[in-house]
């Protein structure tokens, strides 16, 4: 009796009615057809087709699962399709951004673009170029140079201040001052970039006369944005240096500051360097603060302490919004895209460097 029952109940309780494995694929194909039909009814367009197919798929798979597998499985399948859909929808704009930058930026991008400035290039040149009478001219050398100078200055200001402040927080800071710094560093990370720009503009206006704009003012504005990033990433890295190393150093009779400089900092240096690189990558693309502090120009300016200075983001902005030739904006737009591509390449390279630095120079703790 019992021996008979065992195999029967075993299959009866542990298996459950399930949709076949190919069900989602088949449903998807059918939904695509339905979507095509639906979108055709309202006048065919790609978005309408996708939306129609998606809705059809979700409805079908949920109902089918509800009938065959039960309510819980149906909810699970619905959420799964929602998650996949969210991912798919988000891919559209994000790939489109990358694609636009590449497709529109590459034609004008190149050595000539990076080595010439916009000085004496006028709308007339652009019109002739658009009509095929003259070559496309005008590059972004002055903007690349300006971005480099301003970012370098901002880094020079931010890294010492940020690194020292993070050392204070981790190694020395106790009590109210440390808490205040931690709190306000958090507040500073939330300062809108345009406000940082206004601060620098107002500061330089007070110190050097109203309307003062130069690369250094831009660097000060970027520093306001960069310091909190450096503080927080360095703080994080210093905190994960084991206390045992500090104690080992103190026990050797080493003064605290040397222990910090020679033992703690070298141990954390890869993480700190990587954090600083990411901070640079963040500010290198800042536009708004530079528009109000460093201004625009079409000429090469080597001196960040005098006269207006162009930067890559400001170049993109001005070429896109104020083309050289109002009637034929295309050459200017091409330049904007090429500059945007340059900017993206710089940012990506910095991110890559940060990752490599973090990986290559990490202390080898394993045997």
């Amino acid at each position, binding site marked *: 009796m019992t021996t008979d029952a065992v195999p029967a109940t075993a299959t009866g309780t542990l298996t459950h009615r399930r949709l076949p494995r190919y069900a989602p694929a088949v449903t998807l194909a059918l939904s695509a057809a339905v979507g095509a039909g639906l979108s055709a009814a309202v006048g065919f367009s790609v978005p309408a087709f996708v939306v129609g197919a998606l809705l059809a798929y979700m409805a079908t798979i949920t109902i089918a699962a509800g009938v065959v597998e039960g309510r819980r499985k149906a909810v699970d399948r619905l959420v799964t399709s929602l998650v996949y859909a969210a991912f798919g929808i988000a891919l559209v704009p994000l790939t489109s951004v990358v694609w636009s930058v590449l497709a529109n930026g590459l034609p004008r991008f190149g050595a000539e673009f990076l080595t010439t400035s916009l000085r004496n290039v006028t709308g007339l040149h652009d019109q002739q170029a658009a009509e095929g009478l003259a070559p496309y001219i005008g590059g972004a050398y002055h903007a690349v140079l300006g971005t480099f100078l301003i970012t370098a200055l901002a880094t020079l200001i931010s890294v010492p201040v940020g690194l020292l402040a993070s050392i204070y927080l981790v190694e020395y800071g106790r009590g109210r001052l440390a808490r205040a710094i931690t709190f306000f560093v958090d507040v500073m990370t939330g300062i809108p970039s345009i406000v940082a720009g206004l601060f620098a503009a107002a500061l330089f206006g007070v110190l050097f006369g109203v309307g003062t704009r130069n690369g250094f003012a831009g660097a000060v504005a970027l520093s306001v944005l960069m310091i909190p990033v450096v503080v927080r990433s360095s703080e994080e890295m210093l905190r994960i240096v084991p206390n*045992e190393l500090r104690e080992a150093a103190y026990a050797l*009779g*080493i003064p605290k500051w040397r222990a910090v400089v020679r*033992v703690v900092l070298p*141990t954390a*240096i890869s993480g700190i360097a990587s954090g600083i690189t990411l901070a640079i990558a963040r500010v290198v693309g800042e536009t708004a603060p530079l528009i109000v502090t460093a201004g625009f120009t079409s000429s090469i300016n080597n001196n960040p302490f005098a006269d207006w200075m162009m930067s890559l983001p400001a170049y993109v902005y001005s070429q896109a919004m104020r083309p050289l030739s109002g009637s034929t904006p295309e050459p200017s737009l091409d330049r904007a895209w090429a500059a945007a591509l340059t900017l993206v390449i710089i940012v990506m390279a910095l991110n890559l460097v940060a990752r490599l630095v973090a990986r290559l120079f990490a202390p*080898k703790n394993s*045997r």
Partner: protein
Amino acid sequence: MPAHANRIDVGDLNVYYGSFKAVEDVSMVIEPGSVTAFIGPSGCGKSTFIRTLNRMHEVVPGARVEGKVLLDGEDLYGADVDPVVVRRQIGMVFQRPNPFPTMSIRDNVLAGIKLNGARIRRSESDEIVEQSLRGANLWTEVKDRLDKPGSGLSGGQQQRLCIARAIAVQPDVLLMDEPCSALDPISTLAIEDLISELKKNYTIVIVTHNMQQASRVSDRTAFFNIEGTGKPGRLVEMDDTAKIFTNPSVQATEDYVSGRFG
């Protein structure tokens, strides 16, 4: 080298973490050239106490002491005493081996000298490295890879490297806070052999959980105990190791060394 300037007198020492009293009323004498073991159950304050002997407890915020610790009559807690200089004379080895991960074996040994900003000739530093590593019984194992990172060694080798690092600055006293608790039996044996070598030149204080170890390596043993959680740790008795393990004068000590509690 002078190896005698190193008698430690502790008088009525209390240790606090903030308002919490961790160790109460400890007085003891640590004789020059001896090995003294601190034993006792977990949390009885022996690690806290050993750290007050070279002011390492100050690294923990809020920690402070009352009382006196005299090194050859000079109070470690005197007004003008620099803890940095104290630690140069009283070295310490920790529970877990902690070589500096960014430095080679050679640089680890020299860390105490170099990080103080002293500049020394290559020949001189070579000599210090060899002496210290020989002193730590590690020379033959690492002499061919002095420029490799110290973290590449085995746990026992790392701990001996840390001992070499500590003796490279030529301290008078060497404090060891459970130096073998993270090591396997073979490495432990190597460290114990080393301790009996080192006691020729240094005064050694060792905290240990392992009573066999205390009886093997030490001349004097101090038993610490705690009455209950939240109560401060106290020194119950201190005597020659042989006496503590065969015929202690306090019942609690006998209970502990015979394994009845702890």
